[in-house]
């Protein structure tokens, strides 16, 4: 069974109190029950004794009274006379002393013949005279045996039950014998036992008594609900059977919704002969009352204790288990990595202290976690940014990536990158992300001007979270747009080797917050990375670019051509190579000097760059005045058109020469196409070169595809190339 702590506490309290209480109730109630049993026994024995004594006392009194009356001179003289009338008259006067119902005077049947001590005298007595005040019952007549016993000198007294459920005290005595007539008489007196005689017992003891003759109740202090005495009821056979063996028999019954204990016993005569039964009826509550009070009080105490135990258990459980439960819940949540949950217990005790400490620990962990997350985020961002940057050589793409990553990392809306242009001595916007409309490189600041200028000139990151009220903020046209309001701004200088190369502006932190120090630190890291990447990109660009023409150098050409041929092979795409040479370049040098020669080279390079497909075709300075153009995915015709376009553009271009002269330049171009002409790099170059020489030889200022070159010439042309990868000697 899985019990919760709170249940365990309550159960513990309850058990600790209930078991002793139950034990005490059990012990006390059993003790009280025993005591009350003893008390009942004692009370019943006492009552039985009282009832018995009452009867004996009454019988004794009657007998004594009867003896006295029988001794009176008047009675004795009446007996001596032997006149029934006189005796009756005397007996009638006894009423005031005896309150009798019946008196019978017996005389010996044949007094002359029988001796006084005749052992057979029992049969020889007959009624001499009688006074019967009410209807006489034969049951009241003493038996011959009694008369015989009385005749032998043993007086008799007993309780006799006559018909109609009436009880009598009966005393039978023998008169004195020293009379002149030498005859003796036996007097039998029946005195009714009135109900109120036993009612007195009830009034005094509050105990009901019922007297039975051999089987029927003849006297009772009890009344049925109809107001009749409960006489005439038969004694239970069980009681009779039990009393044959025991002196008393006890039963319980419910009479008029009252539980009683009924104790039956026998009524015995002076001579111990059976005269009837007696039942003493005691209300159980008479005895049980005191015990009941005690037990009831115990029950009340138990109930209160149980209540208190449960309450205190509950209080304790709610004081300990409930906070523990809260702790367990929060600890579980914390273990899942959420350190923000707090234990909501505000108390001044130990649990309160524990809660405070726990919450502090949570706070610390949360902060630590947050900073870890931040660091992780920064590291990840840096890594991602650097990853992105490392694989990009295109500057614009690089700047876009740098900016996008920074805006994302700093949770901002938009941003821009400004790079320092040493020629203009200005920082100009090189890239912007998040601004509406097409990006134009027109925003420029002098170092120290505006926020970006300040950041650039000071080399420190500037955060302005309320930019609109910042006087040093310079509004550009875009920031006048109401939809595009700048709320806050962070300008981070990009530095390489302590030299600023530009500024990254991050604008409008999302979520309404401003930029903070964490953002500043991250931005600084990112900017350092960006600066390095931009610088690297710049250096790389420098390494593969011809310084004068700003076209790619020969080595780069070789590498790229290799790559492009491989790509064309992979994708089964055509690739064309255009080789070009400036016609009569030597003449320019010789006539106008090297400076003009250089200008011619720069001009041709510019025209080529502008004519070819940006980002697709690759223009290189092959050597001297020779240029090569790799045109990926370009077939024969397209390549011819491109070459022609270049030729015409150069032909049409005018170059201001010395003395206001306008110099005319023409180009000879040769084209070879992969895979029509060759699938090998070397061969492709050779064939393009061969085609170019065909153009030179056929009047210059023309573009020839190798496919147009006659078979014989092409072979001869090919032999003119000195070696792979090296430009041919200038003509």
């Amino acid at each position, binding site marked *: 069974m899985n019990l919760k702590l709170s249940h365990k506490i309550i159960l513990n309290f309850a058990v600790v109190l209930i078991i002793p209480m139950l034990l005490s109730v059990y012990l006390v109630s059993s003790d009280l029950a025993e005591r009350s049993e003893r008390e009942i026994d004692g009370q019943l024995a006492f009552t039985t004794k009282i009832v018995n004594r009452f009867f004996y006392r009454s019988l004794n009194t009657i007998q004594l009274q009867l003896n006295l009356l029988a001794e009176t001179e008047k009675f004795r003289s009446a007996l001596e006379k032997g006149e029934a009338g006189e005796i009756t008259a005397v007996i009638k006067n006894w009423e005031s002393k005896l309150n009798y119902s019946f008196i019978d005077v017996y005389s010996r049947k044949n007094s002359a013949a029988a001796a006084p001590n005749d052992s057979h005298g029992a049969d020889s007595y007959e009624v001499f005279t009688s006074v019967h*005040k009410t209807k006489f019952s034969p049951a009241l007549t003493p038996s011959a045996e009694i008369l015989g016993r009385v005749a032998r000198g043993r007086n008799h007294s007993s309780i006799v039950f006559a018909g109609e459920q009436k009880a009598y005290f009966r005393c039978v005595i023998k008169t004195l014998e020293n009379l002149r007539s030498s005859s003796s008489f036996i007097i039998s007196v029946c005195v009714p036992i009135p109900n109120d005689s036993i009612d007195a017992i009830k009034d005094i003891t509050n105990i009901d008594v019922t007297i039975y003759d051999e089987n029927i109740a003849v006297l009772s202090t009890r*009344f049925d609900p109809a*107001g009749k005495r409960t006489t005439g009821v038969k004694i239970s056979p069980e009681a009779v059977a039990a009393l044959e063996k025991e002196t008393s028999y006890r039963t319980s019954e419910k009479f008029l919704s009252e539980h009683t204990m009924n104790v039956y016993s026998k009524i015995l005569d002076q001579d111990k002969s059976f005269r009837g039964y007696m039942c003493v009826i005691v209300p159980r509550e008479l005895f049980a009352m005191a015990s009941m009070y005690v037990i009831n009080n115990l029950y009340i105490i138990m109930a209160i204790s149980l209540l208190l135990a449960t309450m205190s258990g509950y209080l304790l459980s709610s004081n300990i288990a409930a906070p523990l439960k809260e702790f367990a819940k929060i600890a579980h949540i914390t273990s899942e990595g959420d350190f923000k949950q707090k234990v909501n217990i505000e108390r001044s005790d130990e649990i309160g202290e524990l809660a405070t400490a726990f919450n502090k620990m949570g706070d610390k962990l949360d902060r630590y976690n947050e900073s870890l997350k931040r660091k992780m985020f920064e590291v990840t961002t840096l890594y991602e940014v650097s990853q992105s940057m490392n694989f990009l050589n295109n500057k614009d793409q690089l700047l876009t990536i740098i900016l996008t990553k920074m805006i994302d990392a700093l949770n901002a809306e938009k941003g821009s990158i400004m790079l320092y242009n040493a020629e203009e001595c200005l920082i100009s916007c090189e890239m912007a992300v998040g601004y509406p409309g097409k990006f134009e490189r027109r925003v420029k600041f002098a170092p120290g001007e505006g926020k970006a200028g300040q950041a650039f000139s000071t080399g420190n990151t500037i955060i302005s979270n309320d930019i609109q009220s910042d006087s040093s903020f310079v509004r550009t046209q875009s920031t006048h747009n109401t939809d595009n309001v700048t709320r806050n701004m962070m300008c981070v200088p990009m530095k390489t080797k302590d030299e600023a190369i530009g500024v990254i502006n991050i604008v409008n932190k999302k979520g309404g917050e401003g930029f903070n120090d964490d953002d500043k630190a991250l931005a600084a890291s990112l900017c350092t990375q960006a600066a390095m990447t931009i610088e690297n990109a710049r250096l790389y660009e420098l390494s593969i670019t011809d310084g004068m023409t700003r076209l790619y150098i020969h080595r780069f050409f070789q590498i790229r051509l290799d790559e492009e041929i491989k790509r064309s092979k992979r994708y089964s795409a055509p690739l064309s190579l255009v080789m070009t040479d400036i016609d009569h370049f030597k003449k320019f040098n010789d006539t106008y000097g090297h400076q003009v020669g250089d200008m011619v080279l720069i001009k041709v390079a510019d025209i080529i760059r502008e004519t070819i497909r940006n980002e697709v075709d690759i223009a290189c300075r092959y050597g001297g005045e020779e240029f090569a153009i790799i045109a990926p995915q370009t077939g024969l015709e397209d390549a011819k058109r491109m070459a022609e376009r270049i030729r015409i553009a150069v032909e049409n271009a005018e170059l201001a020469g010395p003395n206001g002269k306008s110099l005319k330049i023409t180009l000879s171009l040769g084209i070879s196409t992969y895979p029509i002409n060759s699938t090998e790099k070397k061969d492709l170059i050779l064939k393009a070169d061969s085609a170019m020489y065909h153009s030179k030889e056929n009047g210059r200022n023309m573009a020839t595809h190798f496919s147009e070159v006659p078979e014989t010439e092409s072979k001869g042309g090919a032999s003119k190339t000195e070696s792979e990868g090296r430009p041919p000697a200038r003509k």
Partner: protein
Amino acid sequence: MKKLLKSIFYFVFVMLFIISYSFIDIAKTTKVTFVVSGILQGNIVSYKASGEPYRGMMVGGMPFLISKISELRKKAQKNRSAFYLLDCGDDFPGTAHSYYSQCRAVVDTMNLMGVSAMLLGNREFDYGFEVLKARAAEANFPILAANVRNKKNGEPFGEFRDEAVFDVNNDGFKIAVLGITPPETLTDSTIKNVSEIAMKGETETIELFKKKAAESGADFTVALTQLDYEKDKALLDLLVKSGINMVVGLDFTNQMTGVRKAGETTLVALNGFAKGAQLTKIEILFDSETYKPFDFCAEVVPVVVNQVEPDGDCARVIADYLRKLDAIMNQVIGEAEVDLKRPFNEETNFGNLIADYMLRAASAEIALQNAGSFRADIDAGDVTVGDFYNALPFDNDIVLIEVPGHVLHDVIDTTCRRERGLLQIAGGAYSYDPNLAQSPDKTSSVITNFTIASREIELNRNYRVATNSFLSSGQGGYPQLKNCAIIECFDNLRETSMRFIREDKILRPVIEGRIIRTGVK
């Protein structure tokens, strides 16, 4: 824990629903159950019914009556009905238990009944006003007597109240109960018992009640009376006209099985011979907003011994009284040498004995005792209080009145003409010939001879006649005696007689020709 809270919530919700539903139900109707008891006439112990509809059955008795009332009360509570037990009075005196306990036995047991209000009946005065006041003080219920006033100052007695007001369900619905003691109390009772009281007029009583009821904000008014619907039409009309909502009265014809309407007034009747064997129950449905009654149902509730479980507490209280009474009843007061025969249509020794005692007690010239006063014979032998009480159970006093000779002659003539019950006489003798009643001259008397102190009656002189208070109040069929001047009131006839028996010790009354019937039977 959540489950527990949930179940507690549902439990509370259901309980609220039930409670609100029960309130809605209560809001529609208010039920009030009235149970009418009364006319106990001291019968706290069950008895064998002699009249219909329970002839031969053991009926009544306080333990059974209380048990039945409890049953009705529980039933009413179950039906969410308010319960009021209205008692029509005439409860205290009437039996040996009442007499020898001076009504304590009745009041003690009635205190267990839960009476809401009891009417002060005329019989309540039977044992004297002091006894009544003492018992009224012991009663745990209000005894209403709006028309009973102190003769000296016209003020009400502190022991009684004019009305009772019940606040049903404690919600403002009030029921006012008026108690009108029978106006004939003054005339029907023994004068000494009512000497201190004055009766206020019914109209005045009802007006005062209406005023008080209005002041107390009663919505429903009840008049608790002993009026007989067949006979007391004037009072009934008065109550109906005055707008009393319900009149509780008595029905002696046994025709009215509970309830009927008279105009807007509901009439509820208790059997005038109920003696605890019968109750009347009426359940009235009231509109809970207007408190106007709109429906009722009524039933007569019998109290038959073997149909009800007796109330133990009451039975024990009664048993205590019975034990004490037994001791009294078993006391021997004398010895009868001859059987004492009660009279019917002839002179008997018992009749003569009692008439003689009346003459002796009142020092009158002549004594008259109605044969109906004797209820049992007494055998020769010891005479106990019980024997004598059974023989003369009515609590009448000896009254000495002054009767003109012609009225006396008329009274004797009346008794001689009756089929049952000849007046027993002492101090005089009369002979009659019932055949004379058949003679063409209807006005002629059936009395052939009427002597007082051995002298012919003088019609134009007044005689000092001792009789019992029943006859002197004009009851028993001799209205002529009602107008006769009362000279003096003496003690209870039975107790006075017993006092004489105790003095005489031996009783040997004889028939000595005081009443002689002549002519052919």
